[in-house]
């Protein structure tokens, strides 16, 4: 038994080393020659400050949009009864079946017709709702007892008041899951911003990093420094929220 435990630990350790090695290499290479100065150098070589700010704006506003539209829609789908509800819900769910690359080109044409190409609107508005978030929240709202709603109504709580003061405060865990999924999704999103923006002042972090990689392909120290600081915010978020995050992933079984 003891030997089995040692073998187990040895295998997990070997696997763990392989998994973490690329990160260690990234950090050690980023500190070669110039040390921490490489970080300042990389930051100033191209406007990474602008890229960070754009990613923060896009991530933040997208998240606010998702939270508002998802709470409202999930509340309606999960607690109200009316004609056409299930058809509408199926319409929402059906869009989850179609992967993003399939409708990327027509989306661009639509944005071009709206005059939104190369604007914040193109980066944010199409992602201000998230069907999976609606689905998660709806499932949760369905579990809230009807008597709770009736009691709140008797106390003079309006329909919206019930959502805002009763239902949402009882859904903190699901809301946290939705926030984590959407922040990670927006922060790491690449294909969409690559397509819908062209100018440098609208460039987000991931697109900026990929261009930086092409321009500085032999300047490893700067590339690794840029990679490190581009991962850092999510890394910190992950370290703080990992228990909730990993639990959410395993319960809902979805990524991106």
């Amino acid at each position, binding site marked *: 038994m003891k030997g089995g435990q040692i073998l187990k630990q040895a295998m997990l350790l070997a696997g763990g080393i392989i998994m973490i090695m690329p990160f260690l290499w990234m950090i050690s290479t980023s500190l070669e020659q110039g040390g921490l100065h490489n970080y300042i150098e990389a930051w100033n070589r191209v406007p990474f400050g602008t890229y960070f700010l754009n990613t923060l704006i896009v991530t933040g506003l997208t998240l606010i949009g998702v939270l508002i539209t998802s709470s409202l829609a999930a509340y309606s789908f999960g607690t109200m009864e009316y004609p056409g509800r299930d058809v509408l819900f199926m319409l929402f769910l059906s869009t989850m079946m179609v992967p993003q690359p399939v409708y990327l080109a027509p989306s661009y044409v639509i944005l071009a017709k709206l005059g939104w190409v190369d604007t914040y609107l193109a980066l944010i508005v199409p992602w201000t709702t998230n069907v999976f978030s609606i689905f998660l929240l709806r499932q949760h709202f369905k579990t809230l007892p009807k008597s709770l709603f009736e009691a709140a109504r008797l106390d003079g709580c309006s329909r919206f008041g019930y959502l805002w003061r009763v239902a949402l405060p009882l859904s903190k865990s699901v809301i946290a899951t939705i926030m984590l999924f959407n922040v990670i999704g927006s*922060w*790491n999103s*690449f294909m969409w911003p690559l397509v819908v923006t062209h100018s440098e002042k609208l460039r987000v972090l991931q697109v900026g990093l990929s261009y930086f*990689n092409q321009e500085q392909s032999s300047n490893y120290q700067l590339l690794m420094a840029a990679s490190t600081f581009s991962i850092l915010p999510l890394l910190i978020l*992950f370290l703080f929220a990992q228990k909730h995050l*990993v639990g959410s992933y395993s319960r809902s*079984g979805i990524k991106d």
Partner: protein
Amino acid sequence: MRTGSRISPYLYILPALIIVICFRTIPILASFTASFTDYDIGGFHGFTGFSNYERMFTDARFWSSVTNTVFFVLGVVPAGIAIPLVLAMLLRGELRGKAIYRTIYFLPVVTSAVAVSVVWTWLFKPEAGPINGIIIALGGDPLMWLREPRGIFEMMLSPLGIQPEGIFAGPSLALVSLMIVSVWKSIGYNTVLFLAGLENIPNTYYEAARLDGAGKFGTFRHITWPLLSPTTFYVLIMSTIASFQTFALVYVMTPPPGGGPLGTTNVIVFYLFQKAFDRFDIGYASAISVFLFIVLLGLTIFQRRVGERRVHYS
């Protein structure tokens, strides 16, 4: 009932509905429609029936992108099941350092594909990269990795005097390098799914097996594997669908225009992207999108059918 309360359920849905219709439903339907038209940088030139599809079926670069994608899926999916399954078996139950392992294994999942690609491009560098550094230190010959267009079977068999050609040469080493990164990035996620699946197997089964004197391998074969099959099946479907859509790794590690050395990492979504946004050939790109959609839908339906017969649901 007041009119207000009769329409209010719809008002609650409205914001989400507008976004879904404008930026999901309409583009999806437009994609199908555009595949039957000639739509390019000069605008809309009318309906052309199936001509985009005819062009697709005779386009050698399209078929090579399909082959590359199939290679990619066949490499990534089995490895992305086997390794996480072993890890989950090792990680289950009480274990010292479990939380640290979870952090380390899960880290690549939340790291952006772009950053991961930038780092691995450096690791794979033929001249100064750390991976070749290790190979040389161990006395081996350095490899070209992301710049190697030769198929891996060709590379393995040519010293024996055998020269496999075409599909039999296998995926290029460049594509295999991308597979390695893709597996590395998804290990943590799949391990978490398997761990959840293992926790759902009631302990009584294992106690019964122990009383029957079943060995470790027997227990795995007759209890763990069949009872875990819904999870395995789910991981299989999800990673197949995800691997079919791989893009960021290819785009960053083997950047345009080529799609890798001699086009050997040109996968479907990369090709679609090039047609749509480098050439602005929306009509043709849409036909490729529809093909991708039908393949993914077909796979999901097929796997579900097979799954229903084979998978053990307790």
